[in-house]
């Protein structure tokens, strides 16, 4: 464990002493900010419109959680889709390319510890990302409750249980994507190849259910289950089921496990 933590610390120190992490997080916050403003603008115009109808019961259907936070969290999944391949690509591939892999393989540590350290660092990055995104609902709740955004004081303030569920969902999406990225990175010496392959795999996982609409029965259910947005959605709505947790857990266990195997395989060939 000590070794894994040492590796995780090293990974994080490299992410944060080079511009990589900052660039990625800035990009993420910027795009999420744009999405946030768009959702907020829509919410505002809807409230105004409903106000002009003079029908207060309509206003009750408007709330910040459903109309701003929920679409934001869902869309951020797409940002993760572009961001995680960049973050994960160097994890193992860079060690091989720069020959530092030879150091890791000749000091008294196990492949398992190498993998664990790297994956812990990846999860820490995702935690930071989710923490940054958590600022958006916090802003909504701050201004939402003080009534500046809402022209009439209509709608309810943020439902934090739903928001937390959504943020946890995002963290799991990030963790699953990083697990894929880590494994792909352990198969190649090229960070570019690692990023590209990871992106393609994740994209497929993301758009799998686009086909589902045209299908029936079991095929539809399978495609729905396999695609990531289905499960992020469940979390963002605040009602994750066991199958959603199992879905992400599968990635987060299988990816690191296969990575460990791939590193161990170097000892054999």
């Amino acid at each position, binding site marked *: 464990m000590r070794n894994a933590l040492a590796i995780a610390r090293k990974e994080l120190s490299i992410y944060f002493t080079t511009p990589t992490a900052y660039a990625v997080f800035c990009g993420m916050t910027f795009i999420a900010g744009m999405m946030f403003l768009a959702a907020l603008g829509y919410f505002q115009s809807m409230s105004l419109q409903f106000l002009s109808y003079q029908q207060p019961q309509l206003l009750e259907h408007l709330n910040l959680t459903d109309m701003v936070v929920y679409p934001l969290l869902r869309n951020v999944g797409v940002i993760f889709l572009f961001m995680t391949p960049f973050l994960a690509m160097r994890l193992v591939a860079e060690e091989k390319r720069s020959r530092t892999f030879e150091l890791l393989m000749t000091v008294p540590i196990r492949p398992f510890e190498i993998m664990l350290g790297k994956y812990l660092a990846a999860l820490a990055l995702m935690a930071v990302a989710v923490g940054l995104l958590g600022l958006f609902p916090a802003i909504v709740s701050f201004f939402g409750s003080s009534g500046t955004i809402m022209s009439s004081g209509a709608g309810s303030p943020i439902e934090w249980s739903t928001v937390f569920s959504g943020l946890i969902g995002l963290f799991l999406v990030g963790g699953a994507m990083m697990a894929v990225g880590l494994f792909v990175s352990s198969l190649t010496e090229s960070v570019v190849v690692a990023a590209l392959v990871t992106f393609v795999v994740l994209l497929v996982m993301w758009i799998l259910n686009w086909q589902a609409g045209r299908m029936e029965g079991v095929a539809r259910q399978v495609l729905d289950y396999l695609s990531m947005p289905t499960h992020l959605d469940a979390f963002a709505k605040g009602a994750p089921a066991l199958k959603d947790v199992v879905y992400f857990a599968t990635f987060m266990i299988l990816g690191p496990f296969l990575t460990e195997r791939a590193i161990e395989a170097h000892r054999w*060939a």
Partner: protein
Amino acid sequence: MHDRTPLFQCGVFKMRRSRLIAAGNGNASVGDDMIEVRNLTKRYRDLVAIDQVSFDVQKGEILGFLGRNGAGKTTTMRILTGFLPASSGTAKVAGFDVFEQPLEVKRRVGYLPEQPPLYLDMTVYAYLKFVAQLKGVPGAKMKSEMERVANLTSVGAVMDRVIANLSKGYRQRVGLAQALLGDPEVLILDEPTVGLDPIQVREFRDLIRSLAGKHTVILSTHILSEITATCQRVLIIRQGKVVACDDLGGLAKKYQEPNRELSLEEIFVKLAEN
């Protein structure tokens, strides 16, 4: 003129003895072979990089490893450190098989790869600390251990600089410092003096000489004067095969000409040329 046959069998006599003593696993006792290599072969697809290499290194001995470019020195060292698997044959360090018990071997070996394994984005301090942690240097001793290796390799002055900005020689020194961390019993150094300035080379020689007796060292180099200055024994390989494995005096005797002794360089040319 090229009578190499007896040399191929280098260490066979010793092998019988050490098999008796070190049957099974466990620590090598004093006077025993620290490193035991038997019929080691490594193939990269069709290319045979090393072919039935056998040799022993005794505890406390410093072995110079010679051979032309591509002879298989780096390959042999990578197998000894557990980075590469052998295609066939065995290698043992301190009685532990490098493939079967890699952790036991890695705990005892300090390794400087051909290309120093440096994280260019880290400072020297952060890098050495990272390696010390991985080598299991206890937290309380961390600082003194890092100071010790920094002094031995004269990198104290660049401790806070980012490795990417260091000159080649300094990078080599940091690589060397990394290998010395944790004071391992066995040092495997692949061309350790590449890029060092003459003064640093001298310090390196003194360092290696001071290790003799307690530490076991294998170092490869193309600079023959380094071998005569630091090593008791040399191992010469040619196209993956051992052609000589003897102490310096023994080699000189074996290859002396009627009226004079040959220098190591002349012997090397004689043996290693294809």
